[in-house]
């Protein structure tokens, strides 16, 4: 039995939206208290729409795949929608994660929320 679903392996092997956005207007970095991994999200938001999103991740296969999937789920979407993204939705879109790897998808949710908060605070 494979450790991960085909979908997870696909996003792990060919992660979407990897990298940095130099002129990002929302950046979030979160760490995982469980295993010590780190995820960083860069957002470029224009007129309330997430025009571009990129990520960097230091973590396991499931963390990399979760970041990749999360960026796909919010790219081109309004900020309000992105705010509602849950880790369950990320895991589901990946055709599931092993139980003890669910926390890696939480990291993706938190990284996006943190980047959105950064965007909001910059607006003020």
């Amino acid at each position: 039995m494979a450790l991960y679903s085909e979908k997870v392996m696909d996003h792990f092997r060919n992660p979407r939206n990897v990298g940095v956005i130099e002129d990002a207007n929302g950046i979030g970095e979160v760490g995982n208290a469980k295993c010590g991994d780190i995820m960083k999200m860069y957002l470029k938001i224009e007129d309330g729409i997430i025009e571009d999103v990129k990520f960097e991740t230091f973590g396991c296969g499931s963390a990399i795949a979760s970041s990749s999937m999360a960026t796909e789920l919010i790219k081109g979407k309004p900020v309000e929608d992105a705010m509602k993204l849950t880790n369950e939705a990320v895991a589901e879109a990946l055709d599931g994660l092993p139980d003890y790897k669910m926390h890696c998808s939480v990291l993706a949710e938190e990284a996006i929320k943190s980047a959105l908060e950064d965007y909001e605070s910059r607006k003020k």
Partner: protein
Amino acid sequence: MIYADNAATTAISEGALKTFIKVNEETWGNPSSLYTFGQKAKEILEGTREDIAKAIGAEFPREIFFTSGGSEADNQAIISAARLGERKGKKHIVSSAFEHHAVLHTLEKLKKEGFEITLVDVHENGLVVPSEVEAAIKEDTCLVTIMYANNEIGTIQPIKEIGEICHKKGVLFHTDAVQAIGHLPINVADENIDMLSASAHKFHGPKGVGFLYVKKGIALTNIIEGGAQERGKRAGTENVAGIAAMGTALKEALDNLDDNAKKLSEKRDRIIKGLKEIEHSAINGDETKRLPSNVNFCFEGIEGESLLLLLDDRGIAASSGSACTSGSLDPSHVLLAIGRVHDVAHGSLRLSIGEDITDEDVEYIIKNVKEVVEYLRSFSPVWRNLVAGKAEFIL
């Protein structure tokens, strides 16, 4: 596939497999049965016991007890020494921080019973210092248990010296030699070893078979109660075919020990040299006092599970001490014991090479580890911070 995880388990050798099949086909009787067919199985069992005793320098065949593997042997050795000690009011045990969990968890259990456990330091180089073992021994110490070679970083401990100290002090000495037997020359008499654990699947024998050497005069405590097998000390109908196959595997391993060690250490050193070229990396454990098969590195700024998955894609089977690879999400206790901080232990890679490794394999491993580490660093926020000077390199 390049199988570089021989510390986890090894392929059964052709010879051992032949023995296994042959015994199962021809001599499958119960060694406890009194008719000839059963006694044939008994002969195989006792013949193997004799061979193994000779191979490790034991005085008597009856000092070898067959078990289900290394874990059981470790459990029984430690529990037995504890029970013997307890009777004399001795409830202190000396061990090291980077023992296998078969040892550490058994010690934890004894601790709950009121035993006191001292774990000596294994230092940055992954080596126990004999004088520190001596200093740790007290009036009420009943056992010293130190592994022969570490399963993660491969460091080989000064067993003979530790044994000498134990004998001088009148304390029992057990060594978990699961990673060492069949790979290093071992003689229990010369090396002052009272008890030794071994497991067949680490030297090209079958899984689920091992043995415990126990010097004459040391009374074992049963872990498994039942029939009178193994002189009443380990119940259960013997895995005769597995035990015989273990005998074959050990003989083969010892016959080729010098050649294998020479070949493996040459390949090991080339891999080490190649991986050292990766910046901000470090070898784990002493570079020379290590198993001929063991390479273990930490690469800063990356995580081990993703490293393993990408190496697997490239046909290399290896292992890591990263928190993300363990079900418990804790980094390897071995790497922590040699002072690697959590972040660095994260990016660890163990390659334990096998005798069939070729020069091309060596080059392939070096090239691919380099590429994958570089790739993972290219989108690691930790690496970016390090390079930007926002955090300090540890390695």
